């Protein structure tokens, strides 16, 4: 209590200096928290994007050959065939779990007087796991739909509204009547698909083409980037052989490996996190330098006063305690203010830009999701600041405590 009173007196005497020190401290903490919060917002938004897809999944598309092979020129268009699906299913059992396929068409979809031109995708039941379709009513495509080529549809809520259709209604795809068996919640970004059974769509709209659409499958056991690359190479070589394409040709079959993408994304996020921390810690460091600087000046300015105190009986420890306590109190108080302001700013960001969506015409995306920092990080940062402030105060304090009273009394 006595000590606090002493400190209060000196703080009162030096409002500007105390204010400036406090500002340096508060600013350091504030910037760290806001920076990390903003970074988290960006990272969370990215994660949300990637979390839409099952990470252990891959999609294969047909492309164009990029190398001449067996007398055929490059630039030949490759379409995946039914036998590619069979190859994928049978020859890679060790790695690939469930194989499905996508076949896309865009027929006129109508219900009564309402109509739409959406993309209709014939899929296998595994699609719901790979692309995370969020069902709100009914069910997704099942194995019986595939086996019996049932004319069923799963449409998005928005489409249901636009078509004025509900679960169980029959709507027309071109000239065929399909039954709505499920309704899902569409993603914010991208045009929503209408899902149907692969066999029905392929059977109705793709009979005169050998194109089997895209192949999608889930897999397991590919833990490292090397594993993934090796598998991709092997798989590509095998499919290339189906189409008489050079084994090394990477243009004929396109692979979209979500797992690989995920790993790269995680790496990028890791780097970003680290960069944010480094910048944040340097900001914090500037606060610490501010504190130590001010403490040095304070001690120098008060040397004469310490001399008086020593002459009348202050022990070195009493002087040390006085300076250190002042340093701790200033950093704690202003560190706390900085922390509170930082958290408040993060919350403000969350409440404002955290909910805005970037509208790119084709899709909408949140740039910022939950741009906040855990309270543990906030407290840790403040603790670091306080400890650093103490050390910063300790050096000049030790110097002041050691100065002999006659030297101190001589100082002005």
């Amino acid at each position, binding site marked *: 209590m006595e000590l606090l009173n002493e400190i209060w007196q*000196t703080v009162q005497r030096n409002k500007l200096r105390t204010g400036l020190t406090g500002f340096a401290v508060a600013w350091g903490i504030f910037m760290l928290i806001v920076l990390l919060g903003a970074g988290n917002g960006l990272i969370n938004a990215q994660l949300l994007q990637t979390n839409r897809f099952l990470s252990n999944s891959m999609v294969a598309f047909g492309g164009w050959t990029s190398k001449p092979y067996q007398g055929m020129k490059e630039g030949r268009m490759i379409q995946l065939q039914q036998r590619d699906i069979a190859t994928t299913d049978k020859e890679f059992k060790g790695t690939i779990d469930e194989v499905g396929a996508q076949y896309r068409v865009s027929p006129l979809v109508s219900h009564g007087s309402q109509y739409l031109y959406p993309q209709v995708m014939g899929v296998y039941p595994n699609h719901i796991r790979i692309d995370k379709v969020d069902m709100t009513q009914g069910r997704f495509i099942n194995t019986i739909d595939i086996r019996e080529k049932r004319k069923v549809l799963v449409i998005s809520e928005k489409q249901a509204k636009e078509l004025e259709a509900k679960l169980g209604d029959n709507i027309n795809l071109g000239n065929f009547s399909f039954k709505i068996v499920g309704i899902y919640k569409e993603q914010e970004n991208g045009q929503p698909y209408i899902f149907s059974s692969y066999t029905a769509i392929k059977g109705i709209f793709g009979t005169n083409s050998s194109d089997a659409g895209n192949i999608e499958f889930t897999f397991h056991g590919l833990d490292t980037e090397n594993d993934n690359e090796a598998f991709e190479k092997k798989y590509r070589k095998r499919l290339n052989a189906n189409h008489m394409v050079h084994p090394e040709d990477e243009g004929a079959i396109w692979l979209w490996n979500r797992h690989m993408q995920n790993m790269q994304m995680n790496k990028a996020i890791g780097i970003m996190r680290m960069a944010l921390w480094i910048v944040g810690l340097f900001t914090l460091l500037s606060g610490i330098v501010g504190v130590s600087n001010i403490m040095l000046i304070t001690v120098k300015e008060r040397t004469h006063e310490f001399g008086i105190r020593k002459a009348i009986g202050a022990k070195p420890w009493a002087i040390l305690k006085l300076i250190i306590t002042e340093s701790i109190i200033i950093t704690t108080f202003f560190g706390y203010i900085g922390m509170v302001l930082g958290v408040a700013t993060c919350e403000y960001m969350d409440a404002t830009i955290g909910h805005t969506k970037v509208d790119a015409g084709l899709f909408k995306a949140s740039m910022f999701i939950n741009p906040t920092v855990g309270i543990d990080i906030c407290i840790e940062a403040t603790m670091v600041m306080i400890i650093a402030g103490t050390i910063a105060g300790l050096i000049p304090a030790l110097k002041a405590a050691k100065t002999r*009273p006659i030297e101190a009394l001589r100082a002005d």
Partner: protein
Amino acid sequence: MIHLENINKTYFGAQPLHVLKGINLDIEAGEFVSIMGASGSGKSTLLNILGILDNYDSGIYELAGTRIWNLSERKAAEYRNHMIGFIFQSFNLINFKTAVENVELPLFYQGVSRKKRHQLALEYLEKLGLLDWAEHYPNELSGGQKQRVAIARALITNPKIILADEPTGALDSKTSVEVMELLKNLNKEEHITQVIVTHDPGVAQQTNRIIRIKDGVIE
């Protein structure tokens, strides 16, 4: 009270300076002594050694029967606090503390409770006729008042000895006389041992014994 035997002190700078060359001095309890000498004679160094603010190279210094030699800063602070009261030429009051807070400070370092030391400080201020000025800051006081606050601060721990370094050096002649009267009365009525360093013969004249120091030795 004070026993000095062959005290030597040399400052080691660019050129070693032998300031005190074997000082022998005894001051009894209740004495009112002045130390006179020209500047550079070593009188301030002697006072610093007496006040345990500085150490000496060789010799014996006993204060109230306690050998003062090679003390840690902690121990020195304790001895200063309990045995010595300082009066400085430039008062050396802490200017962001009120008169009463300045007087209290030595007791703060003794760990005396806030209430008790405040009470005691007010008593001493009253004794020196400054009760009405207790809550004033040093910059609101005249030179004589400041020095009286400093005297109260020196007295409050009930020290063995008061050491005054040019106590009237910063005061006009009228207040100088007042302050000297005060110190003289403290000696006469309360038998407080005092050592006053001065170069003012007028001040020295009022003490009971004058010690003249020249070139580091007592004449």
